[in-house]
């Protein structure tokens, strides 16, 4: 049994994701998830996020004092969800003084699928678009093949064909699975793998933190990939 006096000493990393219709929170340490909570809750992210985060810490007998860094998905994703995650992570960093790391949502999605020479990670962006990016995960490192961008289903099919894409993950490909059927030899990850996991966010965040890539709480911004005017139809 681990004696209670051995504390986590600021080694815990919190992972947060509210970028889609599911949300999740996790506590990570040395690349391992110690606790994770969340689920499909398109209308209750705000209600559940903080209590579940606190619940994760309590579950492992820890408190915010032992948190060394907080990692949050900064986009792409649902604008309201991204803002909720970002403002919560910023405030934790501001109050506790812990480090803060922004994690790309599509990278967090792709990170769960090693060994694929061309992987498509995409989120349903509504308005008939998908926020997507392509990665090579075959070397055990996440290598980007294309930057984050908004695609129509047709554009995505064409790009996936060009890149000889083998695997598609996330809520975007899942929604447009019929269209993506036109891409030869493309496997679609099942629905249970279509959501970002906070444990992945925490693991990526921990690496970035250890590599000195944390940011000041005043400088963590969401990546919207769409202007407010476009969102409103003003332009």
């Amino acid at each position, binding site marked *: 049994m681990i004696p209670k006096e051995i504390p986590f000493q600021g080694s815990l990393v919190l992972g947060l994701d509210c970028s889609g219709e599911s949300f999740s929170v996790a506590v990570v340490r040395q690349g391992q998830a110690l606790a994770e909570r969340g689920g499909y809750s398109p209308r209750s992210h*705000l209600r*559940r996020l903080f*209590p579940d985060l606190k619940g994760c810490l309590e579950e492992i007998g820890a408190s915010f004092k032992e948190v060394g860094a907080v990692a949050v998905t900064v986009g792409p994703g649902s604008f*309201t969800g991204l803002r*909720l995650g970002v*403002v919560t992570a910023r405030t*934790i960093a501001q109050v*506790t003084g812990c480090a803060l790391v922004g994690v790309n949502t599509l990278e967090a999605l792709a990170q769960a699928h090693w060994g694929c020479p061309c992987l498509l990670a995409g989120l349903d962006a509504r308005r008939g678009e998908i926020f997507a990016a392509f990665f090579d995960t075959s070397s055990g490192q996440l290598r980007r093949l294309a930057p984050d961008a908004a695609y129509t289903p047709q554009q995505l099919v064409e790009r996936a064909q060009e890149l000889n894409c083998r695997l598609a993950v996330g809520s975007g490909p899942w929604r447009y699975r019929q269209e993506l059927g036109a891409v030869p030899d493309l496997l679609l990850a099942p629905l249970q793998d279509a959501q970002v996991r906070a444990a992945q966010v925490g693991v990526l965040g921990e690496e970035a933190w250890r590599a000195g890539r944390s940011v000041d709480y005043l400088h963590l911004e969401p990546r919207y990939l769409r202007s407010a005017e476009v969102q409103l139809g003003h332009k």
Partner: protein
Amino acid sequence: MYIAHPPFKPRYILGLESSCDETSVAILADGERVLANLISSQIPLHSRYGGVVPEVACRAHLEVLNPLLAEALERAQIGFHDLEAVAVTCGPGLVGAVLLGVAVAKTLAGTLDIPLIGVNHMEGHLFSALLEDRCLPLPLLCLLVSGGHTLLCLVERWGEYRVLGSTRDDAAGEAFDKVSKALGLGYPGGPKIQELAQKGDPQAVRFSRPMLNEGFDFSFSGLKTAVLLHLQSPQRVSDPDLCASFQEAVVDVLATKALRAARQFGVKSLALAGGVAANKALRQRLAAGAQRLNLPFVCPQLDLCTDNAVMIAKAGWELASRGWVSPLTLDAKPNLELARSPEAGA
């Protein structure tokens, strides 16, 4: 929205307000001394659209919330760990905007281990009257008028409200905004119309007073339409005369109903609050009416009429001192109504 908690009086309480187009953070000491009151207004951002654009508002709130928090503590010369409670607007308002304030408040309460108090935005306006006079005799009749609401509210005990009447269509402030837009004066309409009205004749056009002698509900949509129709008519008066006549009609309806309710319910005091409470004609009319009825009358100072976090901190302090505290599962409630059943509290 509330859970049982022993009543307590926080020495330092932080207030957060982000329900519409102002982001505000305030710190109140002992429930009465304002140590910080920071307001970041988005008016210039929205004026090009002629009204508040939700996505633009939410992005702007996110930008300023954390910096304002840091600045408020600095102004108050205290640290996070000195805070003993945090109060936040949890509705009504733009859901994506309210959500941001609530998320910050929960995180503060949860990491600092201090109580969280969710406040109805309109209740905040109501409590701002207590900043003027701590011992207002009850029952109190409060006229709450803003861009989104027009409410006549009877307060028999603080924390419990009876809404006697509200608007059936446009809020009073909304009518000001729409008339202002039609005249090409811009947003927000209240101050612009008031300014022109000062140079005009309030009797130039005799606009009808909707539902003047009927119950306590309001309707301003017809009046707004009458003004818009007048703009097309060959007998069109000058803009100052038009503004003065329109303002006179709005003030007349609001004041007449408020004073009638005050008499009918035998209240002991009268208050005016909300953004439209900044209108001088309305303040004067109600003050004169209250004097005739021999009632004490309060109205927040001008800078506390528009949305601000001082009123939220004040309301939070008053609620905490009566044992009303919120759980960390507090949600944003875009359509939250001003009513509370007495048995829900501690």
